[in-house]
């Protein structure tokens, strides 16, 4: 009879292949030059550390996670082991943040990585070994960077080897550093409202797709202005990271706010001898000093620094181009609907006034 009962249960299971709300279990190990961070889902931590949900109500509270922090770090020290040139590294994991991902909430810890970019780096991974056969560790956060299954020895593989080469030669490391910093640059320009506001202040008065009276295309000054800004911030970013100029000066952040107000002000009352591209270059120098701190936090040194800077600048450029192209499309649409006079009034004048107000607000905040 029990045989028939289990048939009944499984029949209903089997007649339709189930549909999934998300993927199976993953953890993420992200290398960032001198730093490594590890993200583990709270579901998996609960599985590995049954005591974490202390009251057993299956509602995991922040306080329970905080109280379990030392056992979480002990668990990761035990199960995520890195070797630099065959020498075990002792990683001092420290809590960094909780993070939301598409399938669950994760806890992220980070540690500094004492391994030169020319040294070999190997990983032994055992988290959830024998507990979840489909658990994977995604290395680098990118699909092509690497994928590891937990195993205790090199012999009993579930899917991949126990030891994985993460970084070997200096050249490929350089390229991967560059690629890693591109998203950071994009994120920085798109995530920072003040840089965007400055860009907009420069873009507002330039009418696109409308040839001026002499029949010259107007995108050329636009390109010069954007390039001026890029040259400016690339230069100070480089100088600050080489230690040739100080980046964390107290006047930088207020000066960035002021640069927005000034650029927007010039849209209202143009000063004929002041060229937009020269101004963009000058203010670019100031904004570059604002970016410099980001690279400092990433603790990039040596030859990786140049790669990182190149990637970061490329990312900033991509971000700018994305904003620029959105603006171009908007202008193209607008040019067919608004007369030049109305455009001047609503876009250039009103837009500049809003930017000035915003910039003055930031200036007050930062002074």
């Amino acid at each position, binding site marked *: 009879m029990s045989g028939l009962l289990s048939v009944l249960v499984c029949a209903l299971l089997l007649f339709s*292949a189930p549909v999934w709300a998300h993927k199976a279990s993953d953890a993420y190990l992200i290398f960032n030059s001198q730093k490594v961070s590890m993200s583990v889902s709270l579901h998996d931590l609960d599985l590995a550390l049954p005591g974490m949900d202390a009251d057993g109500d299956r509602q995991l509270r922040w306080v329970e996670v905080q109280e379990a922090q030392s056992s979480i770090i002990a668990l990761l020290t035990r199960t995520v082991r890195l070797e630099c040139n065959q020498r075990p590294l002792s990683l001092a994991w420290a809590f960094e943040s909780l993070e939301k991902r598409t399938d669950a909430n994760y806890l992220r810890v980070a540690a500094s990585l004492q391994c030169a970019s020319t040294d070999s780096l190997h990983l032994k991974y055992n988290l959830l070994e024998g507990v979840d056969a489909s658990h994977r560790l995604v290395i680098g956060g990118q699909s092509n960077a690497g994928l590891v299954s937990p195993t205790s020895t090199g012999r009993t593989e579930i899917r991949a080897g126990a030891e994985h080469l993460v970084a070997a030669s200096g050249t490929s490391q350089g390229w991967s550093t560059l690629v890693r910093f591109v998203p950071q640059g994009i994120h920085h320009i798109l995530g920072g409202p003040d840089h965007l506001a400055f860009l907009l202040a420069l873009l507002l008065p330039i009418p696109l797709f409308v040839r001026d009276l002499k029949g010259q295309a107007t995108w050329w000054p636009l390109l010069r202005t954007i390039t001026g800004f890029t040259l400016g911030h690339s230069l100070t970013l480089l100088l600050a990271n080489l230690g040739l100029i100080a980046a964390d000066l107290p006047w930088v952040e207020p000066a960035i706010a002021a640069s927005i107000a000034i650029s927007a002000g010039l849209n209202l009352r143009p000063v004929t001898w002041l060229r937009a591209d020269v101004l963009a270059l000058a203010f670019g120098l100031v904004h570059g000093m604002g970016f410099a701190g980001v690279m400092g936090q990433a603790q990039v040194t040596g030859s990786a620094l140049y790669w990182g800077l190149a990637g970061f600048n490329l990312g900033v450029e991509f971000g700018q181009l994305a904003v620029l192209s959105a603006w171009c499309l908007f202008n193209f649409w607008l040019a067919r609907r608004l007369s030049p006079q109305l455009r001047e009034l609503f876009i250039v004048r009103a837009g500049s006034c809003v930017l000035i107000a915003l910039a003055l607000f930031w200036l007050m905040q930062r002074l």
Partner: protein
Amino acid sequence: MHSPTRFLPMFVLCAAWCSPAWSVPTTWDFLPSHRYEVVQVLAARTKPLTSSASIDDVASSARALIEQSRRLSDPRFLGRAQAMLAPWWNRAEAPANLAILQATIEQSRHHFDDARKTLQRILQANPRHAQALLTLATLEKLSGRYALAIHVCEQLQDSGATVYASACTLETKSLLGQSAQAKAGFKRLVDSESNRATRAWLLSLAAENMERAGKNSEARALYLVSLELQADPYTALALTDLYLRDRQWGAAYQSLRGQAESDAVLIRRAFALQQAGEHAQAQAIVLTLEERFRAMHARGEESRFHGREFALYALWIERNPAKALAISQSNLSLQKEPLDWWVYAASAQALGDSLEIDRVRQLFGASGLVDLRVSALLIGVRP
């Protein structure tokens, strides 16, 4: 005359969007605002196995995990069940009640070839194993081998699982176009069945039979009765697809209310919302789906095991029938259920390429499957 400057924005936009940053899964950092904030709702804890656990204990614990994975639409629990079965996984000497669970896990992951091998191993040792026969029949139907499926269903009859054996045969006959016979048979089975869950399941099979015969209103009524008896994600999806085909966007959206947010559910929700003109809401769902696809890709998941969803996504959401056609065509080498044929035919029809439509018609004709939903898409444009 187009000035080259007109293309500048498009070029720039492409350059920015093609950068590698967009393929990386996104995360959002957060810190709770107070100490007692719930940061994660966890699934019910399953009983851990002790070192003295018997084979039956292992089987019941692994089965509980598989059921949990299905109930929560959460594949994590399949990995946990697999880890529990590890000592017997792929072993010729594995007891049948553990090997059958391995086959269930493989089938759930759409690894149909692996599942078939595992089942054949069980049946070699025990040719009358009811569960193995039932699963094998499902796989044969899914692969479009209807004659083999009927043969397996008949073997099942001998092993004593009569309701399942009859339903198995009736469903295969229905797929082959004998809908009147299947209709009468399902009615008989439903009337004599007392178990609620089994009745609900039989009613959903009867509904599918009606739908294939082009009788939408009868199918809808049967789906609704089935769902009333027992909520089931698979039946809810089938009903939603019926509404979507009838262009009843509101009803389609409603019928997915309260469902676990599987990819299949989200794709249909986004499509229904788009069609109803709720573009902002639809777009939010599309972003979630794209994020999931990125995360799936990052963990090395093979997209061919998700061909049906990807084809529907390309057809409905991306509105790219050429892409949908390519995906749905290769998906047929994995599974050949009516919906797989439907998305293939619908893609060819949306593309409007008469050569492709001819090709689909030929392949579909040779498959043996009879389904008016599919043939209606192909007949309408016959030259």
